[in-house]
């Protein structure tokens, strides 16, 4: 299954939730905000949202800036 994560084509072996994808990448809820197919998705929905073909995730966080 192919999805896009921060603009990069990404292949998943099996359907997993957003939560599982974040855990596999070492990201904790509260550290990032996620746009799921263009809409912000609340972290309470990460566990129940299972990724499907062609999904588009933007994983964003605050960095230093002026």
């Amino acid at each position: 299954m192919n999805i896009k994560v921060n603009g990069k084509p990404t292949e998943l072996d099996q359907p997993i939730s957003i939560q599982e994808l974040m855990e596999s990448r070492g990201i904790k809820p509260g550290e990032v905000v996620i746009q799921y197919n263009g809409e912000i998705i609340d972290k309470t929905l990460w566990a129940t949202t299972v990724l499907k073909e062609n999904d588009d995730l933007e994983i964003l966080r605050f960095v230093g800036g002026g």
Partner: protein
Amino acid sequence: MDVLKVGGKELLNRLFLGTGKFASDALIPGIIKASGIQVVTVALRRVDFDNPQENMLNYIDKDCILMPNTSGARTAAEAAKIARIARACGCGNWVKIEVIKDNKYLLPDNYETLRATEILANEGFAVFPYMSPDLMVARQLRDAGAAAVMPLGSPIGTNRGLRTKELVRILIDEIDLPIIVDAGIGKPSEAAEAMEMGAAAVLVNTAIAVAGDPVGMAEAFSLAVKAGRQAFLADPGAVKEYAEASSPLTGFLRDEE
């Protein structure tokens, strides 16, 4: 008590801190504490999974007001999108509008900035537009619902100081919103200069971040901002063309001819 009321908040400290370019983000908590910083800007970016960094928010005191910027936006629509995402992070409703297409001087696009201000003020944001100091645009920003107007002193990151002084002075005179000088301030004396003429606050990033001792430089800026503000409140005397003696012009210790 001299309080700055802006964006629905009351501030005692008029030095706003930008958090980019620090050699180590671990310096930031010490700066916030030592200088009593209350407002801090941050940027929103994609997570780089190949080079994961700590979340900047871990370095910012929970009592600080976060002012996410829309850096990276080239249009009003992009700025609005970034602002909405930042607000969804649960960090309050302040946003610094930064819409820039010019990569050499990083000068803001005043037109798109105005458009973004209209959109976001309507959505309940406290909008702080970074702008080139232009009176007509400043009036339009005010009418669009901006919380403050943030004219640049000189191009971002140049440390060239308050080169736009005359134009900023006009904004201070004419616009009944806080005028916050943002960008280009390189030295504490320049921050004091802005405050002396009535700026409501200054936003400093590069000058502190790239100093040999960022903590010491932040304290110097904090003192300068306080000194400049106090001087403004004390109403500086008039500037004159010719000398006017400070000592009496009578009773000299010599015989009059």
